[in-house]
């Protein structure tokens, strides 16, 4: 088993703006993580399948134009597929009132515009470590 955190960076829903997801994915890769990247508009079922096949620790969902509203559906689908322990973070334009709903649905953290790439990488690394120890207890 690789010790490098493995992260899926993707966009679900209808929006295609991907500057944020491209920059974050490239940064995580340069920070030594294994990154699986997809084009936008992924179906929720496709994301779950990819997370399973690629055996990722963390899923990063980028949202600019309200696609964060269907992240709770993704959380359900992950649980249904037996992937409840996979860490999910969301980055992009998420109003405060919606952030609460995402955290309640099990999202580990929401990163807003202006977040530092190093902060994101540090958080993902910690989250991946926690996910690993939950999945493979010593």
């Amino acid at each position, binding site marked *: 088993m690789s010790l490098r955190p493995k992260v899926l960076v993707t966009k679900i829903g209808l929006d295609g703006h991907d500057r944020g997801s491209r920059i974050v994915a490239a940064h995580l890769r340069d920070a030594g993580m294994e990154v699986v990247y997809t084009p936008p508009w992924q179906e929720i079922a496709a994301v779950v399948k990819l997370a399973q096949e690629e055996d990722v620790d963390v899923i990063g969902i980028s949202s600019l134009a309200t696609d964060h509203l269907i992240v709770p559906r993704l959380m359900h689908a992950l649980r249904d597929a037996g992937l409840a322990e996979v860490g999910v973070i969301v980055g992009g*334009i998420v109003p405060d009132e919606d952030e609460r709903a995402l955290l309640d649905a099990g999202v580990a953290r929401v990163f807003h515009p202006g977040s530092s790439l190093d902060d994101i990488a540090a958080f993902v690394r910690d989250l991946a470590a926690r996910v690993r120890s939950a999945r493979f207890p010593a």
Partner: protein
Amino acid sequence: MNKPLPDPVPASLDEARVRWAAEYAAQLPQDRETRNRSGIPVKPLYTPLDADPSRYDEALGFPGEPPYTRGIYATMHRGRTWTQRQLIGLGTPRDYNARLLDILDKGATAVSLIPCNSVYRGYDMDEVYPELLGTCGVVVNTADQMDTCLDRVDLATTSCAMNDPLPFTLLAFMLATAKRRGVDWRDISGTSNQSDYISHFVANHMFFRIALPGSRRVLTDHVAWCNAHAPRWNPVSVVGQHMQQAGATPAEAMAFTLSTAIQYAEDCIAAGMSPDAFLPRFTFFFDISISFFEEIAKFRAGRRIWARVTRERFGARDPRSWRFKFHAQTSGVDLTRQQPLNNIARVTAQAMAGIFGGLQSLHTDAYDEVLSCPTQFGARIAVATQNILREEAHLTDVIDPLGGSYYVEALTDGMEERILATMADVEAQGGMYAAVRSGYVQKRIGESARAFQAKVERGEQTIVGVNKYVVDEDASARPALPKPDPSLMRSHLAGFARWKAERSRDDVDRALSALARAAQADGANTFGAVVDAAVAGCTHGEICATLRRELGFGQPLVVV
């Protein structure tokens, strides 16, 4: 007033420059190297020694005359200010119409329509997750709904910009509405924003519905159809905004946009159209970043290059073909979630750069666009910002007021050189269509996006409230954000289902079959078939599904 420089420049001027340079170096021994966002080195001072006054006619000329560096019309903003075109769209057609009539009442002078993301993606409202409906744009799927959107708007006299990617169903619905109201299609004016499928394939990816070769065909058909049936409509808006928002530098965004326009023009010529038949209806759409002088120089250089390309490369004879008409939008990427009211200052500076750059139409972002779809409060401030700049600030008293600035002229030349070099890179790839198919353009934009972000992370590019002057904020001070009323959206959905059940299924089937046949037949016009389908009562989703089936599903090429 400056007197013309004698030729040669007197020795005294050069001596004075040497004196100043010594004094400058003594006072600022550790001067920083400064480059703008396009990577052009910027000196601390520009003087007559940076200009060549003998080039005035060739490089600048007069407004309304080629090369149009000083503006595409003789009177520019003194004769007619820019069109105040705010992009709006939220909720149901009724919600949209109310917001539209409000901003028209507050000073906006033209219509724009932003549809829901479900529309962008080519689906009807009953094909997507209901929680996404109407959150970013108006849910409009039929000619009837378009009629509601444009209620009490005179289609014969109001310019309408539709955020309407190919196959241009929103325009088709508007034409169907006009027909119903007895308005002649020849009087319809406005622009198919988002017609630039290349920009969507490369960046943004919002509106890419049909595979690349099919997109190429539909756009060319659209140009030919509009020329014949709706001659006041601008069928092509070449979009630099997406590429700059995705990370291209201002010079790259201008270069890729001009290269795209060249590609579309060549495709139209290959389809048998004459340059002077379609070039007068080409328009452009750009981003205005907060890099003030760079943006002004970008627009001035773009005008100069386009005047040359249309005349020399395409042999256009009609001056309307040479004019570089553009709409611009203040850059959302520059706005911050932190201390959002600061965005009003940013938008003001961006808008001024666009105005000094000689734009024809302007959208100012609402300060809260970085938080969500803008509030009515935010949208009104954005409109007021334009009113203040246009009528209080005396910006429009003089045409091209920064023309002749030693710096702005030198920077215009520098940007032109940089833009031409990037256009040559694209030519070397075989033109824009080939350069996006191979991922070349995507790679360049990605590299520039990362380089800019790295400057922000290192603190070399200040962003107030983000990497400098950070303050603790009270999140409750942020505005309450608009959301579509779920009960209104539910009844909109129910109304749509009823409407579909009641319409003539035979008419719909016939029109969709004709559309499918047009897509397969060489020489048929696909957009004409789309208009017929809209008139016959087909929905947006049905039209898009038919063309996706016949021409292939569009997937962007993403390079990370």
